[in-house]
């Protein structure tokens, strides 16, 4: 019975989502259709905000519909002007196609983002939190929190700048090996071999497994005495004394090389995803290019360099850019490997340090400023990425 009810519930929600999309589409449709009419501007200013305020009221979002009405009035004026003077009815289809996706994103992310910015210019911490709850206002802090981000460090031994360097290095190494590993595997799998589907399914296991267990299982393999890796190293050194002479032997991974351990595990986790993306990308390359190259007698590496890599770029680039952003902000592995209660700070990157400030010391405003700084850095990195990608495209 419960099960039937849950199906009903989800179908119901899907329907609500669909209706929401229809609503958005209808809204923009009318703007496109009538934007140039003289009556439209006043009509829109009256009609849409009223409807929206009524919707708010019906949903119980606001007890007092006047304030939202004013908000909607303002935004409606902006939107109508935007349609009248900038969009001018062009590219109707493009905007209609984009509208639901972007309104969804705005709903989910704009409010939190504004919230973080608000916090970062104020002072929310343990002792002011009740004041905030009761009065809704906080002491203004100006840019003090931002100054603190750069001048103090949330960690004991590592400065902000060292932490930044470490984070960049961590991101670079991870993304590099994700792409390199994924590319190799995808190329291997793209041959006409047997059991391809079977291999492919097994190879995505690190991605498919729940990350927590995957990481904890891998962590066990790095144990200094009972982990698979050290047992192999010991056996190797025993079998080939020369290697032992070169320094091959058991390593205390977790206490002496925590960041290396995290990196190795994270690389292991990330390769399958890149492999799938690249494999899909390889499908977009027409075999006729290779046939032509074969006739010219091109070698395998030449084909790789001049056909595969350039043609796979449009698909690879978003994966690399987003991979960079995700890796920069990814603390799952670090958190799980170095111990859940905070662990050693020798494996901390910016984000894990940020979480310490936010959740261990409840310095909300400081961590909000910190998050905004991270956001800004990532923003510039990715704009730079995209620019260089565009440049490469033009070159071609």
């Amino acid at each position: 019975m419960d099960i039937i009810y849950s199906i009903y519930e989800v179908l119901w929600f899907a329907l609500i989502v669909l209706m929401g999309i229809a609503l958005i589409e209808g809204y923009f449709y009318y703007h496109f259709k009538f934007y140039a009419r003289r009556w439209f501007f006043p009509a829109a200013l009256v009609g849409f905000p009223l409807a929206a305020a009524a919707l708010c009221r019906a949903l119980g979002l606001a007890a007092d519909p006047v304030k939202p009405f004013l908000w909607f009035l303002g935004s409606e004026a902006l939107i109508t002007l935007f349609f009248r003077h900038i969009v001018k009815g062009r590219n109707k289809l493009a905007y209609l196609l984009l509208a639901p996706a972007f309104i969804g994103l705005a709903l989910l992310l704009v409010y939190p983002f504004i919230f973080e910015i608000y916090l970062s210019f104020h002072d929310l911490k343990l002792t002011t939190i009740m004041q905030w709850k009761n009065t809704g206002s906080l002491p203004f802090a100006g840019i003090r929190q931002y100054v603190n981000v750069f001048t103090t460090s949330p960690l004991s031994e590592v400065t902000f700048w060292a932490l930044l360097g470490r984070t960049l290095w961590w991101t670079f190494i991870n993304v590099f090996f994700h792409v390199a590993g994924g590319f190799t595997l995808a190329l291997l799998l793209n041959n006409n071999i047997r059991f391809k589907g079977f291999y492919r399914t097994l190879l995505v296991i690190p991605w498919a497994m729940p990350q927590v267990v995957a990481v904890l299982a891998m962590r066990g393999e790095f144990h200094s005495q009972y982990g698979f890796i050290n047992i192999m190293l010991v056996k190797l050194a025993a079998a080939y004394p020369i290697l032992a002479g070169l320094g091959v032997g058991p390593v205390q991974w977790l206490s002496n090389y925590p960041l290396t351990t995290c990196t190795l595990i994270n690389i292991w986790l990330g390769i399958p995803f890149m492999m799938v993306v690249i494999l899909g990308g390889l499908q977009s390359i027409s075999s006729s290019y290779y046939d032509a190259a074969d006739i010219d007698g091109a070698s395998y590496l030449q084909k790789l360099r001049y056909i595969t890599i350039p043609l796979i770029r449009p698909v690879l680039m978003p994966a690399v850019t987003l991979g960079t952003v995700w890796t920069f902000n990814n603390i799952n592995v670090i958190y799980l490997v170095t111990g859940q209660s905070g662990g050693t700070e020798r494996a901390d990157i910016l984000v894990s340090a940020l979480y310490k400030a936010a959740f261990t010391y409840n310095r909300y405003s400081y961590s909000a400023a910190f998050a905004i700084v991270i956001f800004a850095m990532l923003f510039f990195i990715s704009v730079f990425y995209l620019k260089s990608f565009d440049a490469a495209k033009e070159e071609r």
Partner: protein
Amino acid sequence: MKRIFSGVALALLPVILFLCSCSRPKSPLDASTIILWEQEDAQVAPYIDSVLAAFKKLPENKAIRVVRTHYQTEDLRSQFQSASLAGVAPDLIMCPSDTAGLFAVSGFIRPVDGLIDASKYNKTVIQAITLDGKIWGVPVSNGNHLMLFFNRKYSKTAPKDTDELFKFCAAEAKAYKLDFCMAFDMGEPFWLMPWLAAFGGWPIDNKTPALDTPAMRSAINFYLDLKYNRKYAPPECDYNCMDSLFKEGKTAFIINGDWAISGYQQYFKKDLGLGLMPKVSSTGLWPAPMVSGKYFMISSGVKPEKLAVLQRFMEFYTNRDNQIRQFKELQRLPALAEAFRAPEITGAEIARVSMEQISKGRPMSMATEMRAIWDSARNYLGLATSRKLSVEDATRKMQENAAQKISEMNR
């Protein structure tokens, strides 16, 4: 085509308005419902539910509903904060005292002075929930302290002091071909504090950290000695590692908390031995584990008229019978002094040892400053025990860093 589309969109609008307005969930919060959040391990849930059911059976509680929601420890903290800010906090939370300081300082929970008679409970368990002269929670159980577990296959009795322990490690442990004589989570400062006390120190002195002390240096040197000179303890071993070593019979002794008792009893049956953490022979002092417990805390958002119901509920939950039943089912020591002395508890061997260990322990401070102390202690303990820093430098930095973090936190 286009006309149909726009017509459909228009027609849908009122439909959506109507549907949304009736699909809104009704608020379950009312005066006769007690919302309780807890963070217990999964095997504790049946016990809690049974107490809740018994509470409801009483005639005066017919109209009362208790809704229990489980969160993980960290989630409970963040959700309780969020919910308090949004004004929808649960009435009660049941959790250990380490987050209590945070909730008390930020004003999310209210003191329980006047609601309970503090003298009915054990002194340490009340001390651990006292901050700035106020009591912030109602104790449900007493404990959360570390003690020595041993495998009776290897050792018949617990060693009284470290000399005895080391003698065993040097002779019998070798004969049994154990991987290690003893193991405990040497990376977590919680395991360091009892030893620190045995060398004459304590990490916090009325809200100021006391980490750069000779006692701390001796405690860390004691660790180094165990790890590198005597090699009685594994060089790298966390909680899960010591747990596995002990369960697989590869180590004779581990130090673990009272929370692990029932699990080990099930696993080892008669082979499980329980003892006090051994006295440090060089100083003649006993290690003093940190003692706290589980507590009910009351949200500051609770309306005054609901307090009476909550008071009745908490009194029922911690009455003598339930405290004794809690011990029988979960091996948790009562916080109620009357139950603490009951024959059911003093008669049981395990409880006797556990109580004796508590009497050697000290209350864990609920001051928010402890967070900074845990954090810097963990970091520099790690650096010192992996020989990245000398012991002197480590303790000095530990102190400086804790002080700095406290000032940043309060600034």
